[in-house]
């Protein structure tokens, strides 16, 4: 029992990331009818927002500290981040320490802007082109984004730690009546899960309770009808693209401490996210979220030693296997609507 709970928990953080990326993909898909192969790159950009902020905050100047000497007897050179000198030791270091959560504030405008530029500058011209063209051009864009990041940040993963308070683990087992140390779960993963839950909730609430959201949902159901009503759906779709980009970006920001950002992480996640979207059902937002979590958890179960010893290698292929089976038996996915992307 404890092992099962542990695996469920372990699957949650990856599942959260899948769910968030798939959610954005589905939004773009459902509203704009565009297959965005650059969505993984947006996730990656989010992670690098965290890296960037951390780098910016730790910009330092060097002073000689006459009170300390190095082993040669010269005054010791000390790097002091500007932040620390401006805000004082305590506040400055706290800001540095909390750079990842702070990067959320930094990433939102950045990602909205990236999304806006992408939609107006490129995607807009591909609404009427075949899906293959959309895949191809966004695939090219993904390569470009990825290479630009590589140019500035290098090819190696960049460790981006979470705030100190979240470094440890929570003994989750004790809370629900198990023995000590049975179910240990890192704090940050818990934070990530809660964070995703909030974002997902916010997106759904936004679509459900605002006029804007209602128009967008109507647009997802039937683009032409809404167009006939004279509502400026295109402008709303641009905003929607920005939001989808921001969701992917935020998923990336908070994922940075779990997986040290590297330039190709977007591609790695992209493939899986598409699989998630397909399993959930093209165009279904709840489907995307459900499938994200399900597949994350399934993956973590498959990597249990007990399972692996029965079916070797299952952890490597489980997600793809499920996707293939779903696609063949239920082409519409778990919760897909009729008529979305059916040929």
């Amino acid at each position, binding site marked *: 029992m404890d092992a099962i709970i542990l695996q469920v928990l372990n699957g949650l953080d990856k599942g959260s990331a899948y769910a968030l990326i798939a959610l954005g993909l589905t939004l773009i898909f459902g509203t704009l009818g565009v*297959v965005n192969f650059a969505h993984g790159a947006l996730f990656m950009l989010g992670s690098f927002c965290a890296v960037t902020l951390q780098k910016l905050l730790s910009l330092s100047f060097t002073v000689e500290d006459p009170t300390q000497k190095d082993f040669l007897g010269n005054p010791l050179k000390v790097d002091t981040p500007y932040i620390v000198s401006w805000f004082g030791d305590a506040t400055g270091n706290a800001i540095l320490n909390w750079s990842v959560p702070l990067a959320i504030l930094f990433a939102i405008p950045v990602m909205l802007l990236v999304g806006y530029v992408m939609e107006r500058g*490129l995607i807009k*011209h591909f609404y009427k082109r075949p*899906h*293959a*063209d959309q*895949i*191809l*051009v966004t*695939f*090219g*864009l*993904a*390569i*470009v984004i*990825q*290479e*630009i990041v*590589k*140019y500035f940040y290098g090819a190696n993963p960049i460790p981006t730690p979470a705030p100190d308070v979240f470094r440890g683990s929570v003994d989750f087992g004790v809370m629900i009546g198990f023995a000590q140390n049975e179910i240990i779960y890192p704090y940050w993963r818990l934070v990530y899960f809660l964070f995703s839950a909030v974002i997902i909730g916010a997106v759904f609430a936004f679509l459900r309770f605002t006029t804007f959201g209602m128009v967008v949902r109507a647009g997802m159901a039937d683009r032409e009808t809404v167009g006939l009503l004279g509502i400026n759906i295109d402008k709303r779709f641009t905003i929607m693209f920005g939001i989808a980009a921001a969701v992917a970006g935020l998923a990336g920001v908070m994922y940075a401490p779990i997986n040290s950002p590297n330039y190709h992480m977007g*591609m790695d996640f992209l*493939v899986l996210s*598409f*699989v998630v979207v*397909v399993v959930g059902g*093209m165009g279904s937002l709840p489907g995307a979220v459900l499938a994200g979590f399900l597949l994350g958890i399934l993956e973590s179960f498959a990597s249990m030693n007990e399972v692996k010893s029965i079916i*070797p*290698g299952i952890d*490597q*292929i489980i997600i*793809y*296997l499920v*996707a*293939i089976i779903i*696609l*063949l038996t239920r*082409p519409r996915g778990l919760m897909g609507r009729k008529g979305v*992307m059916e*040929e």
Partner: protein
Amino acid sequence: MLGLSKKDTTFLLVVIFLTLATPILLQPFPENSALAQFNAGYPDLMQRFAIFGIFAIGFNILFGLTGYLSFGHAAFLGVGSYSVVWMYKLLNYNVLPGLVLAIVMSGLFALFIGYISLRRSGIYFSILTLAFAQMSFNLAYSVLTPLTNGETGLQVYNNDPQVLMSEGSPTSPHFFGIVMNEATKVDVGGWQFTFSNGYYFCAIIAIIVFYLSLRIFRSPFGIMLRAIKTNQTRMNYTGLNPRPYTLAAFVISGMYAGLAGGLLAAMDPLAGAERMQWTASGEVVLMTILGGAGTLMGPVLGAGFIKYFENIFSKINDSILHSWFSALPDGLEDFVVFVFHPFIGKGWHLTLGLLFMLVVIFLPGGLIEGGNRIWNVISGKNRKKKRDEAAHHPKPTSHVN
């Protein structure tokens, strides 16, 4: 000749000539000149032209003719490479058994993947092939290690059986004694030409498979595939089941990929799982689109283009840039070098990505279409005449070329 129309025969002869003369044609600059770095006439690079040309020709039979966009063809490339290395390990370094096995294995593998994936079309098909390829890649890296030697990659070890290996037989890949990595160097004036066995082996195979693809394009089967791309509804209501046609195209293109993968291992007796990664599938997509999907020469051009510039761009560095722009005033020179810097050396992929986007956006017909447009501009007089004609006559079908 050979069951081709006169025009196609000429076309094929030109292709044969160009392929065989490649070691000379790609060596336009004398050895000691500053431009020698743009020469591409060395075996390693020319072999890659031929091999990736084969890969792209095969991919084009599927994507160019039927419109089904596979993101999983690298899996077949990998299967081909593994097959060849296994034959080295079991028999000897003769490439023939391995290549035959590569084609057979990749064909079977493509039959399996294609049979399942082709139940869906459009983006679903792309994702299914992607899923299969990633699965193969992950398995090759993990549980299939006994077959693939995992991360290290498959290679020949001293204690391998190599049952057909005798005293005098070559200890590197060969074709009945013709050793692949041997070459004849010929110096003419300041030029040096390298005629490598490996290149000619690949080139001859490339010519054969190009000829086959030409036949396929011109055959009733080829028309069926193009019809499928255009309108599957009409296909069905004409009493034709599209599935066997698409599956046949899928298997043929998988066999081309397997052959290409086998040749990679025939040139260099190694096979690694990274060859199966989906980014490798992406590369053949890039080649085909860049050159011109659905045209005969496009994929070959695209493959050559990408492999050439990959090689050249990766070699250019800042000091070379400085030497090119040294005529400019210092400040400007530094600026120009600064601007070009991200696109050269390791930045080649950035250039490629941008180029690819530009092609998809502005030149959906690829380099071939670009060439045609330029040709039309050059022969401007002609065009005007044609336009006058077009006003009176119906527009003729553009021929696939």
